[in-house]
């Protein structure tokens, strides 16, 4: 069946129809302040974990709540809802000692991308 784009289809764009937030009671693996390391994964297909973050140490800044997982959706593996966090990385962790000491980068990462990492250990 061919889907025809009608005025009504376009009017659907005025609505917040595409939220990826999932209303589900799922436990969070991390909380704000926790140290983490981004896993070094190299999937063949779609992922929202950019290469420059893989293997790097950061800190959970905020828990955004439960969201569907973009990677599994793209691979036909369903929503696999899980917590999504805002994670802070220092510019020096990502780009080396020459980067400005105060600067940082925040990126949104799902539970499956993260492993605990105690910076003091």
């Amino acid at each position, binding site marked *: 069946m061919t889907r025809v784009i009608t005025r009504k289809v*376009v009017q*659907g764009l005025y*609505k917040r129809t595409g939220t990826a937030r999932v209303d589900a009671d799922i436990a969070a693996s991390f909380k704000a302040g926790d140290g983490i390391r981004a896993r070094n994964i190299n999937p063949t297909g779609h992922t929202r974990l950019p290469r420059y973050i893989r293997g790097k140490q950061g800190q959970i800044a905020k828990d955004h709540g439960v969201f569907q997982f973009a990677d599994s959706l793209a691979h036909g593996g369903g929503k696999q809802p899980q917590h999504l966090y805002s994670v802070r990385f220092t510019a020096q962790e990502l780009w080396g000692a020459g980067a400005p000491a*105060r600067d*940082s980068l925040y990126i949104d990462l799902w539970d499956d991308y993260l492993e605990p990492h105690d910076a003091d250990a």
Partner: protein
Amino acid sequence: MTADAHGDADVALRVRALESLLLEKGLVESPAIDEIIDLFENRLGPQNGARVVARAWSDPEFKARLLANATDAIVEMGYEAVQGEDMVVVENTPRVHNLVVCTLCSCFPWATLGLPPVWYKSAPYRSRAASDPRGVLLEFGTAVADEAEVRVWDSNAELRYMVLPERPAGTDAMGEDELLALVTRDSMIGVTRALAP
């Protein structure tokens, strides 16, 4: 495809050819095209984001709501659309300068800022905004003091980000409607500051 590689006339011709093909094949109805042009020319765009910023500058309670839960505060102002489902607003201060990028593609808050500018989608901006934000900011004419922190927000996942620029000095007597004119799209991406009055 950039404007450098193809003249405007060339692009317009291509768009017209595509439009008539889609209409002839019955894949798109003509009123849908009018609606989508109206949507992106008149209803979604940085004029919405500017209203949000001007109100936040003028109304401390709204600003607090906006920074705590940007999604609800923006919907409260009537700006609702796809690519604005879950919003985060980050505040520029003398100590923190925020900059938004999507390193993986071109994620952008349509409801408040409309479609992204071409440079935002370019590979050089997407890589250098993350690795050398201060250099990129300088190229936009924005110098950030060494003692301030630059925070880059990579909107790689499901949330969309917008910067609340600093209210410019000398605007204390200005109302929301006057302030609107000082809020540019680029200042809400974070590559520039709001205009001086």
